[in-house]
């Protein structure tokens, strides 16, 4: 043993002897520090009049037993309503612009007499996929992210955590998991990283494994578009109010599934008692709107959009190629979708949808573009620049309200994107947990969609 260690050990054993005489040293230390902090504060701080504490008054309403939950859900609905109704027009304009440019590109390619396959790969594949991603994703994101950041900066999120804490405790999870879920709204990979705020490894794993049940920004456009399609087929009328209620309902369902899966995990593979923690309710602060806009647009919107664009470009090329190389009168994509058709039908979807989800593994944002491209390549070319046109296309490909609903559910519940999986691998340092993180949601998604599809068919609803 080295002499330093001997010396230290000597002192340690002496300290230990003294400690036994003193009793709980830690308690005395903490108490002394608190007392002196209090003493100093009393000497320097004077509050002029009876403190008019507005924050407490707001908190009494926002975190009250009766109004807490309804307010939360109403606020969620409001955010979606603003997002959906605000995004319609800019989406339309962007689509007109970008697809209008596609015609110019086509003309240009013909003018230089470029070969047809080159035009196909670059314009019909790459460019069109990009145009879809930008026009569908950018407007909702540009509205949703600032709104969400606003609530975050205002100090509302800790109140949400406060409200939901009891539910998560009961599910055997950590109250801070709610905050990681809020991050998940932006991006599940970020949500998984945010799980670091949870100290206990058991509860952190639960939070990591279930983070995917919160729809990330990449999936919101899908959910929003599908909600419109679903309502269009079911009640054949567009309603932003109904659509936002539906999306809010989907999010609530995601939270419910999170609780359920957390509960099952904490009763099986991740047994244990939830640890307690102190949750601080920081004072409400009116956010600086300028900084907020810059931050949410630069840090979040453009970041996520860039990621989507980077993935969408090669995906567009691959899909177009797969859809246009024909073997014995059927495209490769047709073969692949054919193989998946049986399974797809079983859970109320179809082969193309399953294929789109699989090919969309790099990023959830491109699931709908892939789906549209594979449907389009099958039949007539049509101008796809509105939700209405999208609905027509989907109905033409055999969609019913059930397909749209199951598409929403599958998108909410299915496996995380590749980035998230890689992040989980890095955070857990374990292949096993990473696999579980993919398998658990996928199983839930398949079971839910299967049950719904079979029930609907047995009851003759479709």
């Amino acid at each position, binding site marked *: 043993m080295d002499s330093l260690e001997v010396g230290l050990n000597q*002192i340690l054993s002496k300290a230990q002897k003294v400690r036994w005489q003193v009793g709980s040293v830690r308690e005395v230390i903490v108490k002394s520090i608190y007392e002196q902090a209090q003493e100093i504060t009393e000497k320097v701080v004077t509050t002029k009049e009876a403190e008019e504490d507005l924050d407490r008054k707001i908190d009494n309403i926002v975190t009250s037993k009766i109004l807490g939950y309804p307010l939360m859900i109403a606020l969620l609905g409001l955010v979606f309503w603003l997002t959906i109704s605000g995004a319609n027009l800019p989406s339309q304009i962007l689509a007109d612009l970008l697809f209008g440019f596609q015609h110019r590109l086509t003309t240009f390619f013909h003018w230089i007499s470029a070969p047809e396959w080159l035009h196909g790969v670059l314009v019909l594949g790459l460019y069109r996929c990009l145009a879809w991603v930008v026009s569908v994703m950018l407007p909702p994101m540009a509205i949703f992210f600032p709104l969400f950041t606003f609530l975050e900066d205002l100090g509302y999120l800790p109140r949400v955590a406060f409200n939901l804490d009891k539910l998560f405790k009961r599910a055997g999870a950590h109250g801070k998991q709610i905050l990681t879920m809020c991050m998940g709204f932006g991006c599940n990979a970020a949500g998984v990283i945010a799980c670091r705020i949870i100290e206990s490894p058991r509860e952190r794993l639960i939070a990591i494994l279930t983070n995917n049940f919160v729809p990330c920004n990449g999936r919101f456009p899908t959910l929003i578009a599908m909600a419109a399609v679903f309502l269009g087929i079911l009640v054949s009328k567009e309603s932003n109010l109904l659509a936002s209620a539906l999306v809010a309902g989907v999010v609530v369902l995601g939270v419910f599934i999170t609780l359920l899966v957390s509960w099952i995990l904490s009763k099986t593979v991740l047994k244990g008692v939830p640890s307690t923690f102190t949750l601080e309710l920081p004072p409400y602060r009116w956010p600086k709107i300028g900084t907020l806009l810059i931050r949410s647009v630069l840090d979040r919107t453009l970041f996520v959009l860039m990621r989507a664009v980077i993935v969408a470009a090669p995906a567009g090329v691959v899909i177009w190629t797969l859809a246009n190389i024909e073997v014995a009168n059927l495209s490769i994509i047709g073969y692949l979708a054919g193989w998946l058709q049986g399974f797809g039908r079983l859970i109320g979807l179809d082969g193309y949808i399953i294929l789109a989800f699989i090919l969309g593994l790099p990023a959830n944002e491109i699931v709908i573009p892939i789906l549209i491209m594979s449907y389009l390549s099958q039949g007539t070319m049509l101008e796809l620049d509105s939700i209405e046109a999208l609905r027509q296309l989907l109905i033409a490909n055999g969609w019913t309200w059930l397909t749209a609903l199951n598409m929403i559910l599958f998108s909410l519940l299915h496996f995380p994107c590749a980035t998230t999986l890689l992040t989980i691998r890095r955070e857990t340092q374990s292949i096993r947990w990473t696999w579980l993180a993919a398998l658990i949601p996928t199983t839930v998604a398949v079971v839910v969609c299967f049950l719904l599809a079979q029930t609907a068919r047995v009851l003759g609803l479709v």
Partner: protein
Amino acid sequence: MQVTGLQEFLERIEENKGDAVIALAGNPNTGKSTVFNSLTGLNQHTGNWPGKTVVFAKGSYRYKKKNITLVDLPGAYSLLANSADEQVARDFICFGKPDATVVVVDATCLERNLNLALQVMEITPQTILCVNLIDEAKRKKMAIDFSKLADLLGVPVIPTVARDKVGLLDLKESIHRVVFEKQLLQPRRIVYNKVIESAIEKIQEEVEVLVHGSLNSRWVALRLLDGDPTIIREIFNHLQRMDPGDQQSKRALKVVEDCG
């Protein structure tokens, strides 16, 4: 020799630390990061604390011809190391030997925030208190006597509104004085009850022989009494790092004799 996360981090800081290294500590939600951002602007980068899932940010600014490196420590309520964040903050302030530590506190909840400040002052006299969010305190009709606070604490107290860039120049100036003009600070000492004070007395002398001025012996004695294993391991690593060789062995032997 065992390479700890702390050591790796210190080596990383050492690479281009400029003229002084300043640690930025504070409770969560005090606007600590706003202070950090306002001081460093775009000259910053973030990274992972080696071996731990804790994020830190490092940045720099220039004031009166001196290049200052600022280390934004993770938010912590205390240095009693209840979490990885608190442990990292404590280890850096204690063993990283920053030239000064700025503790950012929320003016609207001074009492709770002072707990951390007092604990930092217990480790290092080179402490500056930055009382942030004074605009909100004003809105809540709270009046804070800053000069009295500075007298009571024995360290500089700088009121700021970081997000409006109020008081940041004063903060830079105060850092400059403490670090480069060797302004003498005599921070208030936390006095414990008689039992603990006499227990500290019993072992402090031997601790002093062992740490030999490289750490605050009173503080180390307190931690040994507290019996926190994480800190004891770090103290051991630190001492090994500070002076390998004969000196250390001699001193350690002396301790053995004294205790025996």
